[in-house]
């Protein structure tokens, strides 16, 4: 199909669907806790409100304080657009796009962290430190996972990598990627998105000083990232691409929902880890992905 | 040539070596050296069959230089520096003696094992030379007073001179003379330096001469 109307469609999908995910998660958490909880569309309201608010900026902050979130948001969305959607394949697949995707997320991290350093607040510095430190292990795990997928599929194109037979290591891969998802999106047990005790936060504390449209961009980018990871995880495990379109759509949905539910359940049942335990968990995820890689490499001897 | 007479002189020289090793008085050390020089000076006559002016010259020069001039010089220095005897030498007198004696025996043994021309086979030239050289080294290494070391150096030179006598006919006497001259001048220079040191440090104890070091 021609890119002319495919690009807007995908864009719309990512931009519009993404804010739904946090809403769903919150709903599930509320349900588990037996509360009514905020409406599913809460994030949409927040974004709309923030977009209309004015900005409070520290006199120490340079224009990078505003531009950082923009760069981060664009990077995340671009990464999302690189991700193939089931049989529809990817819009601009080329060998090595998987790595581009990872480094786009790195770019987003860089921009957010830079913006967070701007106001020179001790707390935000703390958030940055934690973010970039844990990212080291998370990124390692993702690359390992991608290497496993490409070894399994014998290709470096995402659309080929994400359309495999259910490989031997899929279970390990799923576990690893899910952990990374939790870490990268600052969910429990790594971080608590709706605590207000700054000392314990990672992502939230980085955006303390942001307000108005930039904050909106940050929040929306975060939701897109969350959806991106869930879709990636689903396609990495389920052979979605092989199915006919409607079935594939259903499968995607059927795949993403459990992820979301899983996140919700984890958030409601687990407590946040102590920070010194975090690297341990992430290393476990890293090892899981490595084992998946080994199995894929030795298993699929092409 | 007169082998027995020669050996007698060499034996005398070897005895003087032991005396030099055993004597604690610097003066007697110098005296031993001068006697040894005289003995050496006499040897060319015994070695040569017929009279030759060169040989005579060498002999006389040796006698005068080694036997008279140098000891005189050293004696003067000794009196100037008021040195009577060698105090606690690095190698004690008894050990020196034993070393020297052992060395002499070893020298004789060594000389047997070395190939020698028939006319030298009978002489004590080689053992005497080796023994004297050894004595010289013991004195150089084992004594503290500069004068004793100079005497040691002289005895060393005497040993080499003894060895040189093996070649006195073969090599042109010009060479011999030159060598002799050099040795004598060398000792003169040493004597002068000893004198200078005596003035600069007003002592001849080499234990004071250890400023230059790493």
């Amino acid at each position, binding site marked *: 199909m021609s890119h002319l109307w495919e690009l807007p469609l995908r864009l719309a999908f990512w931009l519009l669907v993404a804010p739904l995910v946090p809403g769903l998660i919150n709903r599930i958490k509320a349900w588990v806790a037996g509360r009514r909880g905020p409406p599913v569309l809460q994030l949409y309201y927040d974004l709309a409100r923030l977009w209309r608010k*004015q*900005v*409070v*900026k*520290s006199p*120490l*902050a*340079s224009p*990078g304080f505003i*531009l950082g979130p*923009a*760069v981060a*948001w*664009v990077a995340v969305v671009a990464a999302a657009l690189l991700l193939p959607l089931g049989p529809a394949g990817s819009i601009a697949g*080329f060998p*090595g796009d998987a*790595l*581009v995707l990872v*480094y*786009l997320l*790195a*770019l987003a*991290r*860089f921009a957010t962290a*830079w913006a967070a*350093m*701007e*106001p*020179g*607040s*001790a707390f935000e*510095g703390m958030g*940055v*430190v*934690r973010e*970039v*430190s844990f990212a*080291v292990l*998370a*990124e*390692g795990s993702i*690359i390992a996972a991608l290497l496993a997928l490409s*070894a399994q599929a014998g290709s*470096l194109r995402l659309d080929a990598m994400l359309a495999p037979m259910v490989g031997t290591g899929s279970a390990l891969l799923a576990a690893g990627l899910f952990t990374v998802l939790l870490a990268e999106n600052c969910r429990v047990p790594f971080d608590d998105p709706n605590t207000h005790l*700054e000392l314990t936060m990672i992502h939230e504390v980085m955006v*303390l000083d942001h307000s108005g*449209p930039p904050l909106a*961009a940050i929040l929306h980018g975060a939701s897109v990232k969350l959806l991106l990871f869930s879709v990636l995880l689903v396609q990495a495990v389920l052979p979605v691409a092989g199915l006919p379109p409607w079935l594939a759509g259903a499968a995607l949905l059927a795949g993403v929902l459990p992820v979301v539910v899983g996140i919700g359940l984890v958030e409601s049942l687990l407590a946040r880890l102590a920070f010194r335990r975090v690297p341990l968990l992430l290393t476990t995820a890293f090892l899981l992905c490595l084992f998946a890689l080994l199995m894929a*490499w030795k298993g699929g001897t*092409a | 040539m007169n082998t027995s007479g020669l050996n007698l002189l060499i034996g005398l020289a070897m005895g003087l070596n032991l005396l030099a090793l055993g004597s604690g008085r610097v003066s007697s050390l110098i005296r031993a050296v001068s006697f040894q020089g005289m003995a050496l000076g006499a040897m060319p006559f015994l070695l040569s069959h017929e009279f030759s002016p060169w040989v005579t010259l060498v002999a006389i020069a040796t006698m005068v230089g080694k036997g008279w001039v140098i000891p005189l010089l050293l004696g003067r220095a000794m009196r100037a520096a008021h040195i009577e005897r060698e105090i606690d030498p690095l190698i004690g007198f008894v050990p020196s003696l034993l070393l020297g004696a052992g060395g002499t025996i070893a020298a004789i043994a060594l000389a047997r094992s070395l190939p020698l021309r028939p006319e030298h086979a009978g002489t004590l030239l080689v053992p005497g030379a080796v023994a004297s050289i050894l004595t010289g*080294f013991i004195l*150089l*290494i084992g*004594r*503290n007073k500069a004068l004793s070391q100079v005497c040691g150096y002289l005895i060393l030179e005497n040993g080499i001179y003894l060895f040189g006598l093996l070649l006195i006919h073969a090599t042109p006497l010009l060479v011999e003379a030159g060598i002799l001259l050099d040795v004598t001048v060398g000792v003169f220079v040493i004597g002068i330096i000893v004198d200078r040191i005596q003035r600069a440090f007003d002592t001849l104890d*080499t234990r004071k*001469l*250890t400023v230059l*070091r*790493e």
Partner: protein
Amino acid sequence: MIGALLLFATVALGLGALAGRWSSRPWLLLTLAATAALAAAGLAVGTGLAPDWDWRSAFTLGGQPLHLRLDGLSALFLVLLAGVGAAGTAYAFAYPIHTHSSDHGAPARGRFWWNGLLFHLGFVLVNANGLHFLIGWELFTVCAYFLIVLDRRKWAVRQAGWLYLAASHAGTVALFAFFALLASATGSWDLGPLRTRTELAPLFWLALFGFGLKAGLFPLHVWLPSAHANAPGHVSALLSGVAIKMGVYGLLRFSGWLPVPASAGWVVLGLGALGTFAGIVFALVQTDLKRLLAYCSVENIGIILIGLGAALLAPLTADGAWGRLALAGALLHTWNHGFAKALLFLGAGAVAHATGTREMTRLGGLWRGMPVTTLTFLVGAASMAGLPPLAGFAGEWLIYLGLFEAVVGHGPAGWAAGPAVMALALAGALALATFIKAGGLVFLGTPRSPAVAGARDPGGWMRGPLIALAVLVMLLGLVPFAAAPLLARAAGAWRPLAEGVTASAPPLATLARFHLLLAAVLLAGGVVLWRRTRAQGVTLGPTWDCGYAQPSRRMHYTAGGFSGTIGGWFTWFLRPARSLRRPHGPFPDRAFTREDPRETVLEDLVRPTGAGVLRISTAVRRLQHGRLQSYILYILIGVGALGLIVLFHGGRS
């Protein structure tokens, strides 16, 4: 044509060196002209406009006829030299060394040695005679030494200089052996392809030591941090941008011309991976801005060597295409690191000059006074962190492609490629942390001292190079395929079979398209959000430090604190120097804790060894105790020993 350009460059450099003794302006013009000529020559050959240049002259130097050649590989490095050289020249024109030290000869000396360094670097690149290679190699080391110690009244500077000199000489000695063995094996000093002489393969290990030491290969990098940190800005730029690349050049050159042992690829790739990881970890924990950059150079050399190692391993597999990809990546990364790191060092030099300190914890908030430096530094930092759409990513991406394909190929090379990928990935994330630290602590937040608050951007002659290099880095990132032909010819010059490295062109073109698009979208996104924010209106308020009313500069994150978390994971080999004073009593007086990074390899490996040797030396020197008697005894002992040797030998014969 090429010859004329090079001759002109030589003459201009020579005249410049002379003119520089008296006045700086003619020196500037001549040197810039020389670099322009070098760039022209390099580009002409590199892009294939001119054929490879090979020139044998009857003029002999040290009894050897001059033999120069400029092929794709040399051209690639020559262009790098010209670019960084030109930037450094302009920068040096304004860089006031004499304000640091009281000897006023320094600037003139600097100009002289600078031209010498440029000349000898170029000489090494273009000559094809072992003897002359050694001459150029040794002389550029000496020139670099005198440039490092320009500010020689400072003790730290002299120490760094001596360490550099000593370490380099160790490498040079290995190269002495290398070239002498080569010459005695081939019977001539002339260099050239000898790929069939398989008995020469073991020589590679000597080359690896010699060139690796110069390149700052990980365990041999001990001289690098202090030298780069203590040299003037433009000197560090040239050292890190070009001089250490000469080691890479040497490795490429002789791994391409000579056969290499079967295990060479594995070793190079392993050392590269090790260096990549260790280098960036050391960089992250530094507190001195220029030391941080220096360690980052160690990391990037590691990345380049990973690429080279893959290229050496490729022949193991039926289709070596992936090796060529990795090689192209390594070459591209050589350029990128050369230019970006030069940019960063020039920026760091500007900061150090404006504020008088290199301690990141004492800096901060410089963006207001030094906007140009901040922006250009940001560009360099992002490129070094390997972020799209900049050049750093393009190079690393190619290497990734190569390694991934190696793994996908399920060949034995996968055992090496997999870990290398992991090292690259971890290093990438660590580099991001490193440069957030550098940029954030130095340029953002509150100025931490009045001097820092008053710091201003340097003058035009120092700003110009910064801007030019930043633009260059961005261009390399946006249109990397522009470099593809040079890469192809360089790889072709490396080994003919690698000619097919044009394989790197298509992916680069794709990436370029993506980069351009991304850049455009980023720009658009930025503009949109900026205008929206302006439209909504901005009110200034104090940093909301969680309600803390008076955020003071004492509350900033310090360099040590920033890297504390990750540093904690690697204490076992970082082994920092810790000092801690706990608060006591109800009204505690001053309490502190500080961690100072150490150069572990130098201080825990090299220094003890040296101390051991010194102990032996002291013991031996005691034998020269001034007692004549023992001296004579030594002579006797000597005679005895010689006698024993003769006896023993006589007994045998």
